[in-house]
């Protein structure tokens, strides 16, 4: 094309756009308030990899599943209450072994098949057992040995567990528990990995995807089964959501500022204030689950002494960390669980920043000598704690360095080591010298995370192998406690014990930070801090 014809083509295109805007403008005015809420461009910081339901471990994958699938139950992000969703109602037997769900009528998957009792039962069995022949693993959050039996006549699904599993209802609200059509379950593992093959009953449908580049979600026509607390009960306002992974922070931000994007996930904390001043909205939330925490391994050098571990708890000035490196979107951790999580108890008084207390604990433990660099020594050995910088957190490096400085103030050396992304788990967690590592992620129910991290049958990160019988029996007891009050009390005791024994050093409450254009309305985050586009619209 010559420049002239190109200009003409552009003019023609512009005219066409103008006309079509005028036309849609007219139709929007005459239609209901549910009319075209526009198309939203969302830039995520990471690439969604596999859509395979049970493998959905990464945050960016959950964010998509959240908007494409529905779940049996909904957990209200504000009140923390469980609400009906695809299950109209549910009952749990007193022994905690039998769950009965009544399935809502008239719900369909986007391929037209029914979300009936048969389909729900199939989903639950599949989630619990996986499919060995296809290399499909079980959902790690689900109880194993679950048997779900449908009764389509009465629209009920009866679930019988092999052992009581109190987290079950919360797990059913989670991002990994999205219900999918037979077409998805029956597909090969490789087909299931594609987002276009993720057939849910949610308010959006995956219209197209280019791996690593772009995923387009279209509004599901006729959607009418939102959770009762949702302000929108009909179809989504947005006609489409274009999800583009942009890993470069500066490019993501530049694209937002140029007006081409409506919502982005994650900005450097140092950028937040400038964006607020420029009129952008910051939407942030700490997801339910475990706080950002360091576990301390008592077999590691010097950490077998509970007083040394306690000194570490008191040596961290969390307020200073938030003040110097983060923003109002972030908060210091106040427990092993994050606020708003079922069973959360504020433990912050037990690990307040107190260098004097840390110093006297260390003096009492015999670390009285100091070497030329100012670190404490005992019997000629320097008090050194080894860690690896977390590879999953963009802010980890400066965070770890600041803690290193704070430790130095009381004479503890924090030895920082780095690994690349691919070797992190295999190397850092196997290193017997390691005293502390960062863990703590969102979980729909905290007990699963706690048992998984700190129980002898899970990852046993503390390396206790069940030798702390108090901890182990508490972890075991809460699974069987089906009564909410009893369970909350046990969770409280677990948090007490983990802090009293200084097994865990809570650092901060991890937040998901989004920046939106002012024209974006109704953008909200779920209890797991995932974006919900259902109530979102664009208003110019």
């Amino acid at each position, binding site marked *: 094309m010559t420049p002239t014809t190109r200009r003409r083509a552009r003019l023609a295109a512009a005219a066409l756009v103008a006309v079509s805007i005028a036309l849609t403008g007219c139709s929007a005015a005459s239609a209901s308030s549910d009319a075209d809420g526009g198309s939203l*461009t969302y*830039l995520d910081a990471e*690439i969604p*990899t*596999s859509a*395979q339901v049970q*493998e959905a*471990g990464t945050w960016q994958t959950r964010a998509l599943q959240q908007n494409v699938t529905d779940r049996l139950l909904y957990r209200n992000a504000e009140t923390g209450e469980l609400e009906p969703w695809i299950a109209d109602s549910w009952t749990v037997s007193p022994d905690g072994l039998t769950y009965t769900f009544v399935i809502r009528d008239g719900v369909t998957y986007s391929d037209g098949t029914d979300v009936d009792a048969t389909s729900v039962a199939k989903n639950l069995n599949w989630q619990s057992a*996986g499919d*060995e022949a*296809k*290399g499909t*693993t*079980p959902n*790690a959050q689900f109880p*194993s040995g679950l048997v779900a039996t449908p009764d389509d006549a009465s629209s009920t699904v009866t679930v019988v567990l092999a052992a009581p599993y109190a987290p079950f209802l919360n797990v059913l609200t989670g991002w990994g528990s999205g219900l999918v059509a037979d077409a998805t379950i029956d597909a090969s*593992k*490789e087909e*299931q*990995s*594609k987002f276009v093959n993720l057939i849910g009953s949610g308010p959006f449908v995956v219209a197209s995807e*280019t*791996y*690593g*580049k*772009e995923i387009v979600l279209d509004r599901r026509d006729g959607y009418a089964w939102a959770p009762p607390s949702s302000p929108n009960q009909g179809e989504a306002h947005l006609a489409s959501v274009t999800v*583009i*992974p*942009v*890993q*470069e922070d*500066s*490019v993501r931000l*530049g*694209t937002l*500022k*140029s007006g*081409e*994007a409506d919502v982005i996930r994650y900005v450097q904390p140092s950028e937040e204030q400038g964006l607020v001043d420029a009129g952008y909205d910051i939407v942030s939330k700490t997801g339910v689950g475990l706080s950002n925490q360091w576990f301390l391994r008592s077999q590691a050098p010097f950490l077998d002494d509970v007083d040394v571990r306690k000194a570490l708890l008191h040596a961290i000035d969390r307020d200073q960390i938030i003040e110097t490196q983060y923003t109002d979107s972030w908060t210091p951790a106040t427990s092993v669980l994050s606020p708003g999580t079922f069973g959360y108890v504020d433990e912050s008084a037990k690990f307040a920043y107190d260098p004097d207390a840390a110093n006297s604990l260390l003096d009492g433990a015999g670390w009285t000598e100091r070497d030329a660099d100012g670190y404490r020594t005992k019997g000629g050995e320097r008090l050194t704690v080894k860690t690896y910088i977390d590879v999953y957190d963009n802010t980890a490096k400066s965070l770890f360095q600041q803690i290193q400085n704070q430790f130095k103030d009381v004479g503890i050396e924090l030895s920082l080591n780095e690994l*690349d*992304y*691919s*070797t*992190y*788990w*295999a*190397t850092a*967690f196997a290193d017997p010298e390691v005293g502390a590592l960062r*863990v703590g*992620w969102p979980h729909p129910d905290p007990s699963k995370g706690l048992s*998984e*991290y700190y129980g002898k049958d*899970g*990852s046993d*990160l503390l390396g206790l192998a069940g030798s702390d019988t108090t901890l182990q029996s508490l972890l075991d007891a809460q699974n069987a406690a089906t009564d909410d009050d009893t369970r909350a009390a046990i969770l409280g005791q677990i948090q007490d014990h983990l802090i009293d024994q200084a097994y865990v050093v809570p650092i901060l409450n991890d937040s998901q930070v989004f920046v939106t254009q002012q024209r974006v309305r109704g953008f909200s985050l779920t209890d797991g801090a995932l974006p919900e586009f259902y109530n979102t619209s664009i208003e110019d």
Partner: protein
Amino acid sequence: MSTQHPNASAADTRRRQYREYVVRRVAQALLVIALVYTLVFFTLFVLPGDPIENKLTSPLNPLPPAAGEALRAYYHFDLSPIEQFTLTVGRLLHGDLGYSLVSGRAVSDLVAQGFSDTIVLAGVAFVLTILLSLATALTAVYAPVRTIRSIAASAPIASISAPSFLIGFVLLAIFSFQLGWVSSVRDQGFVSYLLPALTLALAVNGPLTQVLIQGLRNAADEPFVTVLRAKGTSEVRIALGHVLKNGAIPSITMLALVVGELLAGAVVVEAVFTRTGLGFITFESVRDQDTPVILAVVILISSIYVGINLVTDLVYPILDPRIVRPGHARSRRSRLARPDVTTAVASGTAAPGGTPTKASVDA
């Protein structure tokens, strides 16, 4: 070949020598690819961690041991390295590249997606590189003002030292964020290739331009230029028609290296411009130790390198048959045509004294 007739003509001998040469070079090329593949395969086994291992042990979303075993069996990680190697090579010979361990997608799809994007990007960048080098070199040698000549002559150094990440971001900030001419994140077809291609061209043109400048300067001093000038040929004709034709020969050898540079530079450029080409696929698969994808990328890239070298090797004897016949006289032209590329890159000048052997081009 031992049955060769004693009366075979010289042309037959040359053809036979060339055939032997071709067979030898092709065999060498295939051997290099096979060795690289084997080396990478077993290196990946020595390194700690893989996506399956991470999935099994990750406190993020760990799996019960029984499920872990099933998963290992599904991906054949329960076999010994040798058995896995045999299996993988067997599949490879059937054209089956397997599936990504991370995204679950067919490796052939991923590599095809990446390659089809990068080949266009590299192609556009290649053309821009040549244009950029020609413009800079002609300016450096022929600009009427001395200052302009020296600025142009130092431009290659500047482009070698400027990080392409920075160049890319500056281009993006100007043309996308400020002027809004192209999208920073959406694929708008050919237009979307221009900025990343320009970034790549700016990053790789340095050495090529240096060789070209040197080549033009050398050619401009050749006696034939004096003859042409004496015959009254115009300076523009001399420059573009004769000096350029002769002086560009050394830099043509460098084009093969430029292709390699373009592929290597694509990783950074694709990250800045949010492109999902081969650089992106490579980066992701190495980050996650996604073995099947890494192997496919390795075999593709080594085939490209080896292929380009092979073509160069096979074309040279056609241009200059003496290469397959050892012990021939060397002319100044043939030395010029086959400069020592390594020295040229390292010192920034074409070294016309380079030995006209294969090794200099392979290096």
